[in-house]
């Protein structure tokens, strides 16, 4: 499943510009340190954090996309930095719990 598939199947909104890539598992956390220690390459990272520091953290561990949940507004500088680094920032009004349920139903699990 690719980031583009998820955008279409779940109705996620793409905020940054990026090349689509394969999604391999899901990692849910609002702590950058947790992501740096535990997320795997290709994971979809689900979070409510929107500060631009999410971009270097996502880039460092090579997640396939960051999904910001709960309808939180993502600052323009975060989106611009993500585009510069080819990091997908996706957004949804759904709460993390609801989104994770949909991802699970699509066959995505923790990796």
């Amino acid at each position, binding site marked *: 499943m690719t980031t583009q598939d998820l955008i279409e199947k779940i109705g996620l909104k793409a905020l940054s510009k990026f090349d689509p890539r394969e999604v391999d598992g899901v990692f849910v956390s609002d702590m950058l340190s947790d992501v740096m*220690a535990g997320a795997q*390459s290709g994971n979809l990272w689900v979070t409510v954090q929107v*500060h631009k*520091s999410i971009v*270097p953290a996502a880039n*460092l561990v*090579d997640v396939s996309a960051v999904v910001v949940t709960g309808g939180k507004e993502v600052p323009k500088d975060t989106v611009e930095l993500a585009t510069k680094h080819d990091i997908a920032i996706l957004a949804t009004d759904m709460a993390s719990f609801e989104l994770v349920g949909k991802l699970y139903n699509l066959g995505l699990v923790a990796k």
Partner: protein
Amino acid sequence: MSDCEHIWKMTNIEFGFIAFEKCSHCQAVRTHFTVDEESGDEYREGDCLWSRVENAQSFRFDLQCTKCNLAVKYHDLMGLLYCTSCMEDCEVEKIQKECAARKTWILVAFGFLPAKKDKPFPPHKLEILTDYFNQRRDTTRSRMKIVSHDLIEKFSLCKGEFIHDRGMLSLEVPEERKPLL
């Protein structure tokens, strides 16, 4: 000299806080890692009057080779900073511009403050850390390169951002970081 082509894994992960302290007398800043969130009470040490200005959630770790078990400690790493291109003449920014064309992204490894400009983060540890993060990623798309803090000449003007969890009790976006010193 080992012939092992190391494959690194993160071990001994310990979550905690990076405590930033500032002296109200000489304005010096220093940092240390602590497992428990410490209080911000002022205390005197010689001529200095230290108080906590920030607790950033972070973690420390070691790296270990899964093939030969060689272990390397990173307790001297305060964190990784990403360059915000705040100074065009900064060596980190120059390297960042060079490497961007090769899809290699730069992060700066910082030792605990006060970090000495003439004392780089140990080069062999930088290489291992770079290898570790590249082994974790799809390097056909892009690579990471981790450089030492001593490349930042104008430390006091640097507005690079640490990849730390600060302001985690608030859902407000943290303000831009002030210069370190």
